[in-house]
């Protein structure tokens, strides 16, 4: 445990020095402020409190931003060490490869937690300022926070895996962007195309719910919106998938970080310094 903490301490310091912590916090804070400002218009007869509405907007934001930050932070975790030539030495220390990855993971997840926490806190403060009833939305915000970390953890693990497979930072960066496009953008477009083409047939009823659960980003959106009163405020793919029980989405969200980390360990074990 001390060894994991040693790696985590160094990695967090590196994240601070490389301005990653600052960049992530500023990015999340800016987006949260913009969303709060955009959501300050009168919400009409929706009936939901301000914070719950904000949480629905933040969910849509987090689906894009949290995986992107995780991938950018972690894509050179292994490839960068290979390129700098720092990997052989650390591998001769009495520390296992899973421990090395766990240390990096802890530091990167802490960075994400600070950034996401700062962003959501700003959004919450803005909502409270505009609507005294906003405190009703706190449970939804708390749920959004920890599920955001699960989503981030998934993409950190995936980033380590591609970093170990690519072995060069340039290639790893390309793969990271590709992974983000596929999981976050193209996957949903593909599903929508499938649903439209299928016209309510077997694909929509039997296959589609499983495909939604198979993507951690969709599972994240589904779980947060299904549990929120403001589902109607955020239409889209989740609306089409409202037959899926939230518990299954949560199971997917819990499964993915573990699977991604195990994949990363398996890929890292194959790296010969």
């Amino acid at each position, binding site marked *: 445990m*001390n060894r994991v903490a040693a790696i985590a301490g160094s990695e967090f*310091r590196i994240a601070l*020095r490389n301005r990653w912590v600052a960049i992530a916090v500023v990015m999340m804070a800016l987006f949260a402020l913009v969303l709060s400002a955009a959501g300050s218009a009168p919400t009409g007869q929706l009936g939901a409190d301000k914070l719950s509405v904000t949480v629905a907007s933040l969910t849509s934001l987090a689906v894009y931003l949290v995986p992107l930050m995780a991938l950018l932070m972690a894509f050179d975790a292994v490839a960068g060490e290979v390129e700098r030539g*720092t990997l052989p030495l650390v591998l001769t220390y*009495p*520390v296992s490869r899973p421990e090395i990855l766990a240390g990096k993971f802890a530091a990167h997840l802490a960075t994400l937690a600070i950034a996401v926490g700062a962003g959501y806190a700003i959004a919450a403060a803005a909502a409270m300022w505009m609507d005294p009833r906003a405190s009703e939305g706190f449970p939804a915000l708390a749920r959004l926070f920890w599920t955001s970390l699960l989503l981030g953890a998934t993409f950190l693990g995936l980033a380590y895996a591609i970093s170990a497979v690519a072995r060069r930072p340039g290639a790893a960066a390309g793969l990271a962007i590709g992974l983000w496009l596929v999981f976050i953008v193209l996957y949903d477009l593909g599903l929508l195309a499938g649903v439209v083409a299928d016209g309510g047939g077997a694909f929509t009823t039997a296959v589609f719910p499983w495909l939604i659960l198979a993507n951690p980003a969709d599972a994240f959106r589904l779980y947060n919106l299904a549990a929120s009163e403001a589902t109607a405020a955020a239409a889209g793919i989740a609306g089409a998938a409202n037959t899926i029980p939230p518990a299954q989405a949560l199971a997917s969200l819990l499964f993915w970080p573990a699977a991604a980390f195990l994949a990363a360990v398996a890929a890292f074990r194959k790296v010969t310094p």
Partner: protein
Amino acid sequence: MQTLTLSQVTKTFEGNAALSSVSLAVAPGERVALLGHNGAGKSTLMKIVLGLIPADRGEIHIVEARPGSHAARAATAYLPENVAFHPALTGVEQLRCYLRLRGEDPADAEGLLDRVGLGEAGRRRIGTYSKGMRQRVGLAQALIGRPRLLVLDEPTSGLDPVSRREFYALLDELAQTGAAILLSSHALTEVEARTDRIAILSRGHLVADDTLTNLRRVAALPIHLQVSARPDAADEVARRLAGERHNGTRVDLVCDHDQKLARLGQIAELGTLVEDVHVIPPSLEDIYAHFSGRVPS
């Protein structure tokens, strides 16, 4: 009881033999220099000892543990060639991390940096260091926790002559406390005085493994005698010793080791015709070239 034992270690990369049946042992307190051309297999041998890559065949023991095991890694310190660290960390921060990885007190970092002469610079980021300073950080991390085996790949590259001497003094201290040291080097002259045994790798074969004195004897390379004759007597000296006149006063003789004293006797008999004589034993370069040329087919 040896600290490091390799027996019949073989490693092949895509059909090319990198190491062929290499057997080598390093005892506690022993300093062994591993010599060889680029691509002779030095780094491969070190990586196998460190457990970074597996051997195809053969057995390796590090204090009774197999390479790469937790026990072996805990007992071994490594200094890679061109050692690198993350540029954003300071020397002290980097060493604290390494100390914690070995289960030692992180507060020792400053003391270790002082020991390698990096005291004040330890608070600056490694990105600002020269190659020699990075090499010192590398050396400092190799000193952590009294290692039983040190594997040092070209440890003095990038160090100035004074730093090299300090480095070998540190190595002597470590050897005196019982650490076994395996180091590779291109600088033959510094290895000559500072190691107990020399192992020479050539195209994956271990072609020599002995003390320098024994290697000299086995190689039986000729000894050069440089005789300085009196200015007007060079021709006579050359004729009487059957040597080769080199310039106005110098006569060169070449003889085998067992003829040396007889030849010196002949020179002494010339009396005042001779002003001085230098005995030049075969250099380490000569011995190295002799052995590394001998590769079993």
